[in-house]
Structure formats: structure tokens, C-alpha cells
């Protein structure tokens, strides 16, 4: 038998030990997405405004965030702003991931809103609905539905991107693997454990998004 330099029996043994780190990963992702959704909807709507005072800040935000790496953004928030405000690592990670995803989600929402046919707006307006009512009751529900596949994709990216929080000392999955890997001298084994965790979480997320998509399709069924 070939003597491998790895001890894969360590994988099941150490697997449960990553539980707390996995929870941290989920927390960063969940709250990051939440912040991203709020920011994304707000800036997505601002971006569509005809008023330059409103759409310019949104455009600038999307331009700056999409044009720079998340790792850099996290470093700026955690290390760069230290003289201005000292933000704890967890909130810094959540803000960073949220602000980052907000820019992408804004573009997802913008595209979805623009894809709703003009006639929908006109029909609502012809009934006497105000612009705000039309947006809230007619355009946004249809836009949300159309944005679900793209949002699901973005959520999966966000989940994986949360690993970058390891660079600002958040002991989520990746940092935990590197620390344990170094102390046990079993780097590959620990990294593989983390890989399994990510695969599990992304699979569940994919499943959930698929379910939501299905549920939203009720109004499309033909007999």
C-alpha cells in the first residue's frame, strides 16, 4: 500500500469541530444578504429615477463597488477606517458583504423592474393608481419574481465570498481551517472539511431558491 502523507480519517473526526465556524459563516452571509437586499432595492430604484440628483449617487455606488475587490472593501472598512470609527470584525464583515452585494442586487432589481412590460404600468395608471401604488402593487411583485433566479445565484456567491472575512480575523470556516490545519499539521484535511461544509450549504441554498421559484410560478400555469 502506498503511504499517503494525509490522514483522511481526520476528516470525520474533526468535522463536528467546525460547527461554530459554520454558524459564523451563515451569520455573515445571512445578515450580509439582508443588508444587500435593502441597499440593492433602494439603490436599484434610485438608479431608475429620472432625477439626476437621485440616480447619480446610485450609479456612483454601483460603479465603485463593482469595480473594486471585496477583499479591498473589507480591509478599508476594518483597517482603513480605524481612525474614524472602530468597527468590530463581525459587523465589519457584515457591512462589507452587504455593501458589496447591494451593488449587484441593485443591478438585478433594476433589470427585473425594467423587464416588466410598459403596458402593466399603463394599465395600473389608467385605473387611477398613483406612481407609488403602481410600483408597489403591480411592478415590484412581478419584478421580484423575475429576479429570483439571479438573486439565488447572488446569494450563493455571497455565501462563498463570506470566506474573505477570514482576512479581517473573523473565525468563520476558512480561517478556522487554516488555524486548525496549522496546529494539527493536517492542512489539506481541514481545508477539505471546509469544502464539504460549503458544498452542503450551497446545495441547501440552491434547493431553497428552486422551491421559491416553483411557488412563484403558480400564476403561470396553463390548463
Amino acid at each position, binding site marked *: 500500500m502506498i503511504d499517503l502523507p494525509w490522514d483522511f480519517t481526520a476528516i470525520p473526526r474533526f468535522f463536528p469541530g467546525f460547527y461554530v465556524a459554520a454558524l459564523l459563516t451563515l451569520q455573515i452571509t445571512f445578515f450580509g444578504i439582508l443588508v444587500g437586499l435593502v441597499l440593492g432595492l433602494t439603490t436599484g430604484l434610485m438608479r431608475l429615477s429620472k432625477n439626476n440628483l437621485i440616480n447619480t449617487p446610485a450609479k456612483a455606488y454601483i460603479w465603485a463597488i463593482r469595480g473594486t475587490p471585496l477583499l479591498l472593501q473589507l480591509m478599508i472598512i476594518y483597517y482603513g477606517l480605524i481612525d474614524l470609527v472602530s468597527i468590530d470584525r463581525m459587523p465589519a464583515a457584515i457591512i462589507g458583504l452587504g455593501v458589496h452585494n447591494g451593488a449587484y442586487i441593485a443591478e438585478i432589481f433594476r433589470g427585473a423592474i425594467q423587464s416588466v*412590460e410598459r*403596458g*402593466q404600468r*399603463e*394599465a*395600473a*395608471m*389608467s*385605473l*387611477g*393608481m*398613483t*406612481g407609488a*401604488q403602481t410600483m408597489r*402593487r*403591480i411592478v415590484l*411583485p*412581478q419584478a421580484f*419574481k423575475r429576479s429570483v433566479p439571479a438573486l439565488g445565484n447572488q446569494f450563493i456567491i455571497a455565501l462563498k465570498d463570506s470566506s474573505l472575512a477570514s482576512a479581517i480575523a473573523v473565525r468563520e470556516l476558512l480561517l478556522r481551517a487554516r488555524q486548525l490545519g496549522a496546529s494539527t499539521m493536517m492542512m489539506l484535511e481541514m481545508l477539505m472539511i471546509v469544502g464539504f461544509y460549503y458544498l452542503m450549504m450551497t446545495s441547501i441554498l440552491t434547493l431553497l431558491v428552486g422551491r421559491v421559484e416553483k411557488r412563484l410560478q*403558480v*400564476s*403561470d*400555469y*396553463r*390548463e
Partner: protein
Amino acid sequence: MIKVRGLHKWFGDLHVLKDVNMEVSEREVVVVIGASGSGKSTLLRCINFLEYAQKGQIFIDGVEANAKTKNLHMIRAEVGMVFQHFNLFPHRTVMGNVIEGLTQVKKLSTEKALSQGEDLLKKVGLSDKADVYPAMLSGGQKQRVAIARALAMKPKIMLFDEPTSALDPELVGEVLQVMKNLALEGMTMMVVSHEMGFAREVGDRMIYMDEGRIVEEGEPKELYNNPQHERTKTFLRQIL
């Protein structure tokens, strides 16, 4: 009921309405015909302020309104509109479509709105479809729902923008029948349509538009049988 004075509309450099003057009196059914691009749909859309005319005046029931009018949405609510492509809300059931304006604009309770909705669906012969989504309906059924949705607001006038043009031929009749019934009930209507049978049967007046102008108008049978202008003659020959 509706008065249009010296209306001009440009889309960029394109001059689509050129000094349009017209009126629709109460209980009158006016049919507008004309080639595509003649401005007939634009005129209808201007009257409901889905487009804003750059020049001229529009009076709805004696009240002038334009792009700057406050609470323009309340004026729109008084003018019902039926579109060529129905524009039903796909995420709402048939009943949901019909009561949307009642609950949101008229602020009726759901209970009251539902009872009115039932009457309206009965009127267009679709009581059994209340709970299905528009995707399951035929084109004719969709358009009847759209008519019920517009009627729910108890509009002072109904505008129809080519209501049967997107329908399969065998479905045109059911929509025209609903419109005829409406006309017989005394609804004020302005209809952009080339359905000559409908125009002659229930139309009080027919307007022929060409290149953004009203070229000729008159009693439908008269205009149809005895057009005065060469362009009207040519057009009527073409659509037959």
C-alpha cells in the same frame, strides 16, 4: 364629456398629432379609424394622459387637465381604458384584476369590492373564471376581464384602443358583444377600431384620421358609404 382643442403631440421630431379638435358628448359612441401611424392611438393615450401632449387643451367633463395637473391619477380614474394587448396583471387572479382599482383607488373594503367584482364578471360572462389567473384565459376572455376591470371604476367614458386587433378571428365577436351591450346601456365610448360592423351598428359618429389630423367625420354609415375625401375613400377601400 371630452373636449380636445388644438392638440399637438411630438415624439422627438415626429409630429404625430397636428392640431386635433374633437368632442365626445355624453352617451355618444365615437369610432376612430385610420391607418397605423395616423395618430389615433396616440390621441386616445393623450386623453388618458398616458402620453402628454405638448400643445393644446384637454377637458374631461368640463375640467381641463394636463401633465401639471395635481392628482392627475384621480382624473385618469374617471377615464376607463382598454388596451390592444389587454395588459392584465399576471400575478393577480381574474377577480384580483377586477377589484384592484376598487380596493386601491376607491379604497373600498375587500368585501364590498368582491361583491361589485362578482357583478362585473357576471356582466362580461366570466363569473366562473374569478379565481383563475389570466394565463389560463383565451384572448377574448382576457379582454372581457380587462373591460370589467376598467368598468369597476365607474368611469365617465371608456376608451378602447384596438380592443380586438390582437384576437383570433373567432374570439372577436364575444368582445364586440360586451362592447355593444355597454353602448346600449348608454356608456360614453371612444373606440379605435376597424370593426366596421360594430361602427355601423352602435357608432354615433366615425372619425377618420390621417397623418395626425382628423380628415373627416360623420355618421358612420354616411362616412362609410359616402366618404368625401379622396384619402378616406382610399383607406376604406384598403381595409375591406
